[in-house]
């Protein structure tokens, strides 16, 4: 007797988006699927891609990251090279946090120069993140957009700054990460606003804000699931690839506190904290994952849906 297996078929399809690479590099294409992650039916031409974050600012690293990338901190270009050629990251997320007044306060020109340098050093796709200070970012992104010698994605556009971001990206052919704070309506709204400006939808990926494991991750999982269900059911504004940045996983005390003996080895625990955060995002439907530990690249790529 054959068991009839129920399927969940959908009328919609996630829009494919390509993060471009330099000649000699491999572009990353995500999206294009008409089915849920890990589901047996439908087609998913592009499995999720795992990238790594490179930060420009100085910081105190949690023990797991100190052990893995500590020797390269302070040298973002060397770290970027290693992420791509040594650890198998398929793209980079370059955070220009060093331009924040509170973490170094490097100039906008320094930030733009670093973007140029990294883009020259690695052929892989790059997403450039701001420093989080509204005023600095408003000057930083136009400078980055102009300085970048090849197309990148800029992270991120939100309701407050989308005109500026879309303008900078459009002028130089870059893509955008559209950001919303764990809210499906705002996620749709920012994509609508970008569409109203005539921004090409095949150059937008969505970042619904990823809470770390134990610190709001469940909200992210449910929002990503709802975005994907709505998109596949026909809402074009939500039928977009989803990016989950796992950086918040490292803010958890459990990921970095060596003093709690009953919690086990802090190095392994930190790594597992980031991996579990990423695995839950994959189960929910994430297409792009940004991690910080080299071990996460292999683990998350190996466990990703195909």
């Amino acid at each position, binding site marked *: *007797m*054959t*068991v*009839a*297996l*129920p399927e*969940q078929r959908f009328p919609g399809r996630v829009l494919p988006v390509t993060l471009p690479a330099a000649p000699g590099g491999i572009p990353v294409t995500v999206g294009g699927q008409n089915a849920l992650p*890990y*589901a*047996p039916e439908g087609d998913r031409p592009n499995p999720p891609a795992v990238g790594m974050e490179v930060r420009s600012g100085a910081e105190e690293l949690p023990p797991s990251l100190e052990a893995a990338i500590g020797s390269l901190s302070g040298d973002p270009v060397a770290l970027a090279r290693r992420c791509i050629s040594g650890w198998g990251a398929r793209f980079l997320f370059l955070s220009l946090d060093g331009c924040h*007044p*509170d973490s170094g306060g490097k100039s906008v020109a320094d930030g733009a120069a670093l973007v140029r340098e990294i883009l020259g050093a690695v052929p892989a796709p790059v997403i450039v993140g701001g420093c*989080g200070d509204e005023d600095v970012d408003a000057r930083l992104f136009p400078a980055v957009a102009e300085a970048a010698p090849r197309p990148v994605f800029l992270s991120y556009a939100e309701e407050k700054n989308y005109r500026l971001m879309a303008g900078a990206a459009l002028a130089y052919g870059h893509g955008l990460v559209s950001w919303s704070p764990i809210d499906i309506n705002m996620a749709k709204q920012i994509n609508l606003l970008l569409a109203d400006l005539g921004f090409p939808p095949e150059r937008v990926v969505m970042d619904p804000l990823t*809470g770390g*494991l*134990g*610190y*709001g*991750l*469940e*909200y992210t*999982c*449910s929002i990503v*699931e*709802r975005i994907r*269900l709505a998109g596949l059911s026909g809402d074009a504004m939500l039928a977009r690839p989803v990016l989950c940045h796992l950086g918040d996983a490292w*803010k958890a005390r*459990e990921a970095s506190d060596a003093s709690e003996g*009953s*919690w*086990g*080895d*802090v190095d*392994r*625990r930190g790594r*597992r*904290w980031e*991996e*579990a955060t990423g*695995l*839950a995002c*994959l*189960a*929910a439907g994430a297409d792009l994952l940004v991690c910080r530990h080299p071990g996460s690249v292999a*683990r998350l790529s*190996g*466990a990703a*849906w*195909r």
Partner: protein
Amino acid sequence: MALTALDIYKLLPKTNCKDCGFPTCLAFAMQMAAGKATVDLCPHASEEAKETLGAAAAPPLPKVTIGTGGSEVVLGDETVLFRHEKTFYHPTAFAVSVADDLSPAAFADRLRAIRSLSFERVGQRISVDLVALRCVSGDPAGYARAAASALTATGLPLVLLAPAAPLATAAEAVGGSRPLLAPPHSDLEAAAKIAAERKLPLRVRARGIEGLSAALRSARAAGAKELVADPAAESLADAVADAIHIRRLAILARNRDLAYPAAFDLGDPFPDPFGAAALLIPRYGSLLVLDTADPAEILPLLTLRQNVFTDPQRPIQVEPGVYPIGNVTASSPVLITTNFSLTYFTVRGDVEASRVPAYLLIADVDGMSVLTAWAAGKFTGESIAKMLSGCGIEEKVGHRTLILPGMVARLSGRIEELSSWRVLVGPQESSALPPYLRRLPPAAFDPANA
């Protein structure tokens, strides 16, 4: 598929006799559709109506309990595929394995290690739920002794991973504790008979959905009633796909033959047990057996389970009170926010990032965010003033200056009226706290009476 009120109404006598306690048959049907009444309230319902409506009311995924009393573990009894549709009710149960052929000292050490896999997080205790006893010795008497001592040492319910002969002796020894019988496929029928006889839950393990369909049928034929389905997946991808199939068969197809909680043995030689466990928590794994007792592996998984099985309509609340952050002194700033866990985590993270030691007051507003609590009248000048005088902060700091979330700046006047505190309006967004805290004039926090 769930029946609509109209579907149900068509099956009722339509006499409006009120014997069910509702004014009309349609009203009764609407209550049944909402899950608030069952067909047995109607003394005149036809056999056909009882059968159809009774089946529709039963949970699509049956409930299976392992263990007894306070350490009882409930599997299954879920109603949705995605937690936002309602909630997931019964958290993925974790069993950590121990082999029955360890030396007595190693056996005791291992059980102690399993027992200590229990942690306190946001006011809840999260722990490994069961001990999985693997029969390596092949010795029925020794296995039964090991089962009895595992039960005594941990108090946790057991998963008995053993062939039929040791299962029989162990069921004799610890059957009263309601262990889960988990035989290899070859011993299914013999084990099913033990399960039927002793009314114990049984794990049925067979490869894939087709294999399970046949194996579950033979277990039922042997009289076993409470079943758990293990598709014997050999890879992470198979495990997740099988789990999705089984849950969909229950929820979408209402397939009674395969609707059972799904179990997975992720012990050796399963590749990437951690990855599979993390995916099976949100994707329908009801029981996972792991070989690792390393807290660095288990704590992240238990935390993920706590996240995924939080009711979306009832967010985790933080215990209200005074939270010192960093090396606080009598002149540290005092901030207030609400006890919605996300609000607390966000504000706490931003205060920590500022590296300014501070006291964070967490107000009891039934787990709402600042704006929601204000709109609901739970975060008011009155409630804040009451908290300031009653929570003990006045003994901890010398000053009387409160930093209020910028979103509720309008409460400042009322707080100053009703308390001895002065209000500084903080930033609208928590993310602006680090620079804000660093730029505060220290004089604002000098002792009030200096």
